[in-house]
């Protein structure tokens, strides 16, 4: 039982990191109608920003987290301006290929600057393991879980209550109508990229503190998993991304524990296929009727 609980908790912690990344994917898809495959690599950039400012420049953890978030926001917004904005009227395939190109660009840039070795991530969250009877919970997993839950709750309130959130929902529903209502589509898309990238920076921070090491390709696997989580929950739906991310993390860890450590990824993808067969729009995705 304790065994099950501790596996569940580490799964929730992993899943909440996936959920943070998946939020970025799903928001950008919902509003800009594109798959931003470079999103996973923004995580890596965020994590390297923390490593550089703490280990090399000797800045305080709080300051370095802020620097990392600012770096990612600037990066996300510039990627959108330079690579995606000129292609807004192009076919989706062109935008998709551009996104893959940006992803390779970021990986290679990190490879050039930081080399191919894995860099150890500074221990900026120092929390000892907590023991509840027989149950041991890693301190940083607990922090990851608490903070990501808070961020996700905050995001839900922001999207549903604030004016900007309303504008984002409007653009996602009907871009042309939103523009006619006086909403600046470009500004809304920029804000979406900024928020998504800030979430990626936070995800990078938690990924680094949980697993300890960062390399140029660190972002790609969590990026793919988070994309799967977004599709799993229903791409374009924010609660879907959160649910998808958390379920994915839990399924991955439980199958590692009880079925096979080698097959866990295969099981995750098998579950995705089954869900998509039963519900093609994902768990919480809305069915959109194409206008003929």
């Amino acid at each position: 039982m304790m065994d099950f609980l501790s596996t569940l908790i580490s799964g929730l912690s992993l899943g909440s990191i996936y959920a943070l990344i998946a939020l970025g994917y799903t928001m950008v898809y919902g509003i800009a109608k594109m798959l931003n495959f470079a999103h996973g690599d923004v995580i890596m950039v965020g994590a390297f920003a923390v490593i550089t400012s703490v280990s090399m420049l000797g800045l305080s953890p709080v300051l370095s987290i802020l620097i990392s978030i600012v770096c990612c926001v600037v990066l996300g917004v510039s990627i959108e301006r330079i690579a995606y904005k000129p292609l807004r009227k192009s076919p989706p395939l062109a935008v998709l290929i551009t996104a893959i190109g940006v992803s390779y660009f970021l990986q290679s840039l990190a490879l050039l600057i930081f080399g191919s070795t894995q860099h150890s991530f500074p221990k900026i969250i120092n929390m000892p393991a907590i023991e509840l009877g027989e149950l041991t919970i890693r301190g940083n997993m607990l922090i990851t879980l608490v903070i990501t839950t808070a961020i996700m709750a905050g995001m839900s309130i922001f999207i549903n209550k604030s004016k900007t959130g309303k504008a984002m929902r409007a653009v996602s529903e009907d871009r042309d109508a939103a523009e006619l209502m006086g909403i600046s589509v470009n500004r809304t898309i920029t804000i979406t990229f900024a928020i998504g990238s800030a979430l990626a920076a936070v995800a990078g921070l938690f990924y680094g503190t949980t697993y300890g090491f960062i390399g140029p390709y660190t972002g790609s696997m969590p990026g793919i998993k988070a994309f799967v989580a977004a599709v799993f929950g229903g791409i374009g739906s924010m609660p879907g991304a959160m649910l998808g991310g958390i379920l994915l993390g839990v399924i991955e860890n439980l199958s590692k524990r009880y079925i096979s450590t080698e097959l866990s990824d295969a099981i995750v993808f098998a579950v995705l296929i089954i869900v998509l067969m039963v519900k093609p729009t994902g768990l919480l995705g809305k069915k959109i009727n194409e206008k003929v």
Partner: protein
Amino acid sequence: MKKIFAIALAAMMITVMFAGCGNSGSDDASFVIGGVGPLTGDYATYGISVKQGAELAVKEINEAGGINGVPVELLFEDDQVDAEMAVNAYNKLMDDGMDVSLGAVTSGACIAVSEKANEDGILMLTPSGSQVECIQYPNGFRICFGDPEQGVNAAKFLANNNVAKKIAIIYDKSNDYSNGIKETFVSVAPEYGLEIVSEQAFTNQSNTDFSVQLQTIAGTDAELIFLPIYAQEAAYILTQAQSMGMEHIFFGGDGMDGIVEKIGADNVSATDGLLFLTPFDTQADEQNIKFTADYQAAYNAIPDQFAGDGYDAIYTIKAAAEHANVKPGDADFNEKIIAAMTEITVDGTTGTMTWSADGAPEKAAAVVVLQDGVATPYTAK
């Protein structure tokens, strides 16, 4: 315009012709030793260590007059642990007039190279290719222990020193080196009174998150966790185990070399008490102390086992050539130097070695323990 083009083309062809001449002159004025290994990528530390160890030996030999009066030239190519790149690098070295091959630094690449070296019939002495198939041909020899030998040595050590009886294993199922050690270890464990309580695998697709494997082991009564894996993955495991508050003994094979650099200064406390098998100890005897000092002076780094392997490989080639009394270009150079391998005894930095015809070295294994990032020989409590 056409004329200029034609002249340029002709000039290029002539240059190529001369270039060809220069290269194919394996002019026997030098004893060319060629090595292949990862100099970039995740496993670069292994290749760089072997290369630097070998360079140091070559420098010393040349200062003392070369091998049988012939100066030694070391050529080293990058393979990024890729078998195909290793074969290409080997072919390039052959074009550059290689007389003896150091095979490749990692097992998979070395097996590919061993096929080619067998076709060419030259002596292949791998410093660190530990898989059985690396030396499957009569011309193949190695400096390091083979994977099955390491599995046996590991079990022997744990039993003889009474370190632990209940063992858990975490191994890399996608890696031959790891599988090789693990399989032998598991099969000989009962003979030594060791009980395997848990076997946990991972693959190169899932080598960052070990929380589930560690939790599973924490739920058993294992006293020691055996890690027959490379240092990068071990770095993940040790830091995660530390943050989970696990207090097991960790024990690894020679792939654990370089763990202190990999894990970084922030996490070095996670390696305290880590035991690993290595035939190389920087302070073992006078030869090793001198080697360590020279290596540090030349490369500003503490030599690891791979550096010792590279250094010993060059001296072994020298010993074999001198025993057979041959120089590159002599008739039957390859046959004589290969035959000499089983007749020599080399007192190297990784132990005193003799070779059997199957190519495996006979030498003693030592276990070191890490404390504050420094390895010292293990002493039984």
